[in-house]
């Protein structure tokens, strides 16, 4: 090994604490990148694999009642590779522990239980026996959420007839990765059930013998879906069909896609900040390290080493740290990615897991680290290269403190010598101090933006469930009802306020921008569910016109005063042009509101409601539930408390869950940066401190010189970190916002306080570590060795 390489390894060993701190920060930055992208890729891959293995259909075509004889006609459609028909319908499932029956779906399977499309994965028990019509297979997440298992009995109402069934097994299906209570947005395993049973038994129950109510299609790779859909609709129209849709519009898949794209946004939007902070730190540290080696550099140059030879020597040092950190980051990233994906597999209810890594994340992680390290090294080396070797080698040039002259007099009056040393150093070497301040500030910014995000999630919950929604119970009607039903609800003792609502599915279109969603009709001055403006005050429902959530308005690129086309997907399927009258603040979904009257008018169905919001007296809860259960027109009842819990679960287990890992990483990075700043200061001043000890200063006094510097740097970093963090949190909040919910970036003094505390705690701890080292160090070694 050449002497220079020996020097390299010894130097690395000498600065190992510092090198480890930088390596760690880089490792975490890279880990974040690798973990998040690995997570996203694995989930996408797993989903694709799941869909393929269980032959999830490409096209779903519901129909009222089509005879089986149509099937060949469907199979003959150009581009269709496979057709499967089945009988499905609504069921009401009685759950003993619940006051109200739970809505669900019954789906037929062929006698063997293995359909050509939309197969299911048996997780417990066995497939039903075609000879026993009472045997059913139940969706396993629903079974688990309600404490049901194979062997239990289940009472369900199919087509008006209540019967007892026997659960023989539980299953998962790619079709039901995501279930919600009817009319709700947020998944809830407990409140939507899926029953699979033998086709003959179900056909009999629905009066569908010799017929089907849904056709499933697989299409050829090169087929154009739009034209196939058109053909299917044409064939099925006479039988009450016509609403065929593709997988991308399938309920569960759409949600899963949204969740994954949310995760993808976080994966691409958040880790770069971690990596950037790590890169910045690396830059600062490397430049200081190289600076400290200026004499050695001068010496090598004096011996006739070329600039590039000297440069390469230091670059190797930088690269060892950067690459070491990056590789460690990749490995940790793979590990944490694996752990996270396991959690997500459970969350998404995948029966198996395909773990894939994204090679580009390794490449980008490693190359960003190397690049920033190289830039850091090059910058400083360029300065040193330009220096004549004689200058680089001149014995430690004392920094020029002469300009501090006038203030010096003031110092002398009020400060003791060590304090003056601290202040002079800070004021006389502003470049170095700035670097340290910015480094710590960047770390704090990271922590601050994570803490801000936590508060943002809280705010989203609060805003959604206490400000926007002030109801206690939401009731959904089986079909639109008139005034009398609303009166009936009002008459229930304990019900304090009833607000009817009308919701219809609709496509909102503004030029080339469109959004498929729903329009909610509200009463003129709603109290329970409201559209609110940015001051949280109620937006009154206009006589005509539509109120859009901000996200929706952004999506449609529309402003108040402009016209929006609403294509209603119900009733007469009218298309109406309405003016956008206001923009509402909403953090959950992207709702659109209209006056109920106006909406009904457009639908040509005046006076009808599809649901109602209730405010109730908690004391009468049980009685009210009992009364609701007895009302035949009510199809579903949701308690806000349940919805809130479901939403919390969504945010804590879905895309939002990564925020905990990120928060932890942010914390460790912040700590690493502060610790590193302390170590660098220590290394740079080891000589001075020893000299102080020699002339008779006590350990405490010399430590004060060093720790005082750290304290000043830390204190200066706090406001800077606050500021950077404030802006960084906007970008990070954006990264955590999904199509389903928005995370606001809030300015909360306490968040700034907490992150400042994190930095201060890190500084205290690092200071303590350094102090411990100083106490152990003996004077002569420090004096003999150059820094």
């Amino acid at each position, binding site marked *: 090994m050449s002497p220079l390489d020996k*020097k390299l390894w010894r130097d690395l060993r000498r600065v190992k604490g510092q090198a480890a701190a930088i390596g760690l920060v880089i490792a975490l930055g890279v880990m974040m990148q690798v973990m998040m992208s690995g997570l996203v890729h694995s989930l996408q891959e797993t989903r694709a694999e799941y869909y393929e293995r269980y032959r999830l259909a490409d096209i779903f075509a519901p129909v009222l009642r089509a005879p089986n004889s149509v099937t060949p006609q469907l199979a003959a459609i150009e581009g269709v590779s496979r057709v499967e028909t089945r009988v499905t319908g609504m069921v009401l499932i009685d759950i003993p522990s619940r006051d109200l029956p739970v809505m669900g779906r019954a789906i037929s399977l062929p006698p063997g239980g293995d359909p050509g499309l939309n197969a299911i994965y048996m997780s417990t028990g066995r497939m039903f026996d075609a000879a026993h019509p009472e045997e059913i297979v139940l969706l396993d997440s629903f079974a688990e959420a309600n404490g049901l298992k194979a062997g239990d009995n289940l009472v369900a109402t199919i087509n008006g007839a209540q019967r007892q069934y026997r659960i023989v097994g539980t299953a998962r299906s790619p079709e039901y990765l995501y279930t919600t209570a009817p009319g709700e947005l947020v998944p809830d395993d407990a409140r939507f059930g899926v029953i699979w049973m033998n086709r003959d038994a179900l056909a009999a129950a629905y009066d569908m013998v010799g017929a089907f109510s849904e056709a499933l299609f697989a299409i050829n790779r090169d087929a154009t879906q739009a034209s196939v859909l058109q053909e299917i609709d044409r064939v099925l129209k006479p039988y009450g069909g016509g609403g065929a849709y593709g997988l991308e519009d399938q309920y569960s898949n759409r949600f899963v896609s949204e969740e994954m794209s949310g995760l993808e946004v976080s994966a691409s939007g958040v880790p770069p900040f971690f990596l950037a902070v790590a890169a910045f730190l690396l830059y600062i540290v490397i430049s200081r390290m190289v600076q400290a080696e200026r004499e050695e550099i001068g010496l090598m140059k*004096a011996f*006739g080493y070329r600039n590039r030879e000297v440069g390469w020597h230091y670059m190797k040092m930088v690269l060892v740290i950067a690459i070491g950190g990056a590789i460690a980051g990749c490995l940790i990233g793979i590990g944490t990615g694996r752990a996270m994906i396991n959690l997500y597999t459970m969350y998404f209810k995948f029966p198996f897991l395909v773990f894939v890594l994204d090679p580009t994340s390794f490449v980008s992680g490693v190359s960003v680290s190397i690049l920033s390290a190289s830039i850091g090294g090059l910058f400083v080396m360029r300065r040193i290269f330009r220096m004549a070797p004689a*200058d680089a*080698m001149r014995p430690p040039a004392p920094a020029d403190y002469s300009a501090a002259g006038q203030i010096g007099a003031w110092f002398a009056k009020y400060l003791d010598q060590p304090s003056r040393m601290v202040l002079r150093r800070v004021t006389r070497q502003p470049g170095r101090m700035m670097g340290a301040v910015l480094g710590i500030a960047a770390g704090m910014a990271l922590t601050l933006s994570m803490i801000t995000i936590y508060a943002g999630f809280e705010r989203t919950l609060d805003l959604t469930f206490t400000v926007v929604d002030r109801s206690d119970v939401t009731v959904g009607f089986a079909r639109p009802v008139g005034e009398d039903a609303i009166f009936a609800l009002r008459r229930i003792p304990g019900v304090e306020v009833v607000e009817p609502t009308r919701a219809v599915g609709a496509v909102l279109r503004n030029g080339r921008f469109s959004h498929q969603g729903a329009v909610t009709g509200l009463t003129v001055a709603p109290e329970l569910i409201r559209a609110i403006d940015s001051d949280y005050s109620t937006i009154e429902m206009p006589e005509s016109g539509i109120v859009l959530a901000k996200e929706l308005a952004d999506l449609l690129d529309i402003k108040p005063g402009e016209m929006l086309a609403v294509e209603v997907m119900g009733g007469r399927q009218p298309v109406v042009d309405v003016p956008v009258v206001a923009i509402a603040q909403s953090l959950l979904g992207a709702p659109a509101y209209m006056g109920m009257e106006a909406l009904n008018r457009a639908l040509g169905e005046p006076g009808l409601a599809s649901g109602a919001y209730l405010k109730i007296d908690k004391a009468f809860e049980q009685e009210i539930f009992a009364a609701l259960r007895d009302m035949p027109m009510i199809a579903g009842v949701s308690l806000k408390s349940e919805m809130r819990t479901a939403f919390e679960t969504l945010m804590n287990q879905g895309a939002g869950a990564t925020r905990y890992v990120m928060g932890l990483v942010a914390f460790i990075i912040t700590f690493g940066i502060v610790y590193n700043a302390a170590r660098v200061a220590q290394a740079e001043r080891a000589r001075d401190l020893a000299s102080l000890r020699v002339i008779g200063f006590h350990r405490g006094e010399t430590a004060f010189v060093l720790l005082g510097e750290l304290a000043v740097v830390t204190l200066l970093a706090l406001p800077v970190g606050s500021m950077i963090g404030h802006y960084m949190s906007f970008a990070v909040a954006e990264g955590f916002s999904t199509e389903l919910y928005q995370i606001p970036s809030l300015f909360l003094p306490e968040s700034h306080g907490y992150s400042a505390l994190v930095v201060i705690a890190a500084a205290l701890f690092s200071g303590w570590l350094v102090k411990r080292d100083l106490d152990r160090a003996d004077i002569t070694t420090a004096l003999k060795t150059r820094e």
Partner: protein
Amino acid sequence: MKISSVPRNPNLAFRAKGLTKVYGEGRTAVHALRGVDMEIPKGEIVVLLGPSGSGKSTLLNILGGLDRPTEGTAHFTDQCLTDMDDSALTLYRRNHVGFVFQFYNLMPSLTAEENVELVTEIARNPMDAGKALSLVGLGERRHHFPAQLSGGEQQRVAIARAVAKQPEVLFCDEPTGALDSTTGRAVLRVLRDVNDRLGTTILIVTHAAATAAMADRVIHFADGGIREISTNKTRLDPEELVW
């Protein structure tokens, strides 16, 4: 028409004309060299004497290709040092020059032997690092780090390092400043041997006026300029020096 031609004396190692070095500007400017003219023949041992701050190190640095003058020219044989760019100067140092610095600059993280190897590795005609250390009496200490050596021992390592390269010119800035007389003489003996054996031109800066007796030529320096140059008819062996 008068042609001002510099006589090309092939026996000259260095030729300096009007060397000026000014550090800083304006009121705080320091004139380290104020127009130095001189010639140093090949193969001589030259001693520079002069009070502290008189510009000796500055001159050495310029002739050694470590620094550039503010004004004036300096030649090494027929190469003009003051016209060279950085990489040419680097090559000059690498191929022709050995240094012993006033502040013994060893790499703290390398052992004595490795410090020598640092130079022999890129030299064209080096001697063995261990042998060079033996020359200065440190063969036994070759695996020690600078922090484990005394100041004088460190200085001897620096000399071994300069000598090991077997350079054409050797610049020694206070090589014996930190040494007792016996060790000092031993070190000077090494320099003398190199001069005898390889014909190396050696410039020694020193405060010890006695050293001058072993030189071919003695340059007295004062206030950034040459006050006097004297030549010794006979030079003494280092062992004969008294100080």
